[in-house]
């Protein structure tokens, strides 16, 4: 096992480097560059600026420069935001992380329970209701549901804030601040949860449906175990195996920012930064951010492989 981990770990390095090159080339291939995004510049000025930013150099040279800087710990300087990429991302990424993490928690908990219950009560009214709900939520884009929630909870009832992360001009600290932020989180988290809970519920449901008919569940019954422990221990552990893979996919998602949700609820997350960086071809931001996500993706998959083998003893790591 140790050896396997070590081996996989070593593998990650060339993969990451390869990925970074690929991504760099990809961005370089994008039509246009940062300078192009400002149509007001005269060609001379544009040329001057290109030289200033080193955008006129060949890709390979730019990549090597970027990479050596990266190795030195320098993630670059945002052209659009005029500040170091690290501090820029730092400002926004944790906000995104906050709602992503909280909604991840809710998503998994809710999906787990509804998925399991609709599996053991397959074709009951509850199952039917959940199924309909899941697909209904899937059929309408999130901005609709978001607007609906805002209209109802924030404008009409006035019990929740309309958007943002804090009350305008508020100077609260500590506990009061925490409370304030949580209040603002309710709606975005609800939307994010609603968006992803459906598919996960389906996964859990199928997984459970497969497992509850196995002989070892019969054995567990024969032991006189409580239904709860039969379902949530014996059945779930088997049914959850695919979920490990799914959970690994969530890792980069925690940091990637939810563009639409953040937009609707005016949540100061990293989603908008990412979109803007892309449309303005702000390469340093794009590269750092994408590499962060790549790194998390690869780590996530790596962790999934290990966890998988740890949870399912039949799988032998090679």
């Amino acid at each position, binding site marked *: 096992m140790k050896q396997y981990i070590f081996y996989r770990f070593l593998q990650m390095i060339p993969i990451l480097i390869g990925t970074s090159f690929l991504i760099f080339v990809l961005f370089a291939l994008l039509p246009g560059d940062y300078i192009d995004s400002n149509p007001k510049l005269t060609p001379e000025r544009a040329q001057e600026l290109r030289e200033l930013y080193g955008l006129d150099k060949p890709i390979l040279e730019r990549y090597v420069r970027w990479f050596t800087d990266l190795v030195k710990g320098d993630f670059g300087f945002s052209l659009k935001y005029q500040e170091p990429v690290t501090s820029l991302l730092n400002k926004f990424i944790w906000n995104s992380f906050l709602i992503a993490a909280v909604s991840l928690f809710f998503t998994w908990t809710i999906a787990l329970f509804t998925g399991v219950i609709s599996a053991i009560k397959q074709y009951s009214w509850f199952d039917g209701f959940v199924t309909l709900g899941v697909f209904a939520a899937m059929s309408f884009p999130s901005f609709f549901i978001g607007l609906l929630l805002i209209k109802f909870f924030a404008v009409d009832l006035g019990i929740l804030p309309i958007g943002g992360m804090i009350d305008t001009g508020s100077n609260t600290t500590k506990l009061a601040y925490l409370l304030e932020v949580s209040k603002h989180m309710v709606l975005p988290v609800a939307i994010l949860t609603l968006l992803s809970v459906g598919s996960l519920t389906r996964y859990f449901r199928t997984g459970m449906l497969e497992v509850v008919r196995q002989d070892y569940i019969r054995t567990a019954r024969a032991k006189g175990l409580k239904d709860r422990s039969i379902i949530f221990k014996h059945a779930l552990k088997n049914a959850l195996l695919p979920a490990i893979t799914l959970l690994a996919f969530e890792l980069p998602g925690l940091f990637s920012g939810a563009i639409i949700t953040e937009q609707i609820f005016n949540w100061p997350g990293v989603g908008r930064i990412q979109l803007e960086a892309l449309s303005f071809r702000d390469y340093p931001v794009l590269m750092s951010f994408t590499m962060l996500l790549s790194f998390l993706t690869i780590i996530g*998959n790596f962790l999934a492989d290990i966890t998988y083998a740890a949870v399912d003893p*039949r799988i032998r790591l090679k």
Partner: protein
Amino acid sequence: METSLVTDQPQKDAVSKPISLWKQTYMRLRKNKLAISGLFFLLAMIAFSFIGPLFSPYVNSTVNVNLMNHPPSAEHWLGTDKYGRDVLTRLMLAGQISLTVGIASMVLSVLIGSVLGAVAGFYRGIIDQVLMRLADILMSIPGLPLLLIMGAILSEWKTPSEYRIYIIMLMLSLIGWPGLARLVRGQVLSLREQPFIQAAQILGLSDKRKIFYHLIPNIFPLLLVVATLNVAGAILSESALSYLGLGVTPPTPSWGNMIDAANNLVDFKKRPWLWIPPGAAIFLTVISINLLGDGLRDALDPKMKR
């Protein structure tokens, strides 16, 4: 209770006739109300989209400022949109694209994903390593820039815009396999250690048969879930693609871009006929595919109570 009235001998020849797997599945499926209603809805949806327009008087109608955003009426059953076009007709025309895109992209990505995942999990070793590392890389590549580049390339090549959506969907399926492949691989990794696969090995079955007959049917329920989710995803993401010029080019309608056209509060509150119909169409399609899928799963699940 010994009441069975059948007196003749068990009919031996009844069993000597081979019943093909498909026929059996079909027979089981027929008994499944769920699946049948799903199939019915889906066929209805297809008929609505492909045959419906033949009966519409508005197929060729043009932008009409006088009819902007009219609510449903006897003439326009589902009202008109902001160009004064008949929503019902557009809904049908949109269905042609959305259904094709949704179902085709689902079939393609499920095929690729499950096959690659099964192959990686089944062979393990170097094949697994290569495929999974490739998956790592593909998953790391951000989608948006890639789409932008594809868009630029297609535009450069002067590909007719009505084909772009299909090319893009194809490309997306070609590079979008890692998620499903990893899921499938995980399942296959534990399945392949089970004695029945060892048994298949002993029987000298070909790898193809082991993968397609022994492994994949066992992850069929998972694939069905992925497939249904995929259809909905593809239909909706088609409209997101149009933002990048990769989707259906307006004024050709698709369910996704019909919903998206009503993206403001006013439409939301005051003109539900703009977004409820496409939403409901997607909903119905997805639900019917899901019903069909559930039915299919039950039909293929030997342990299911019947």
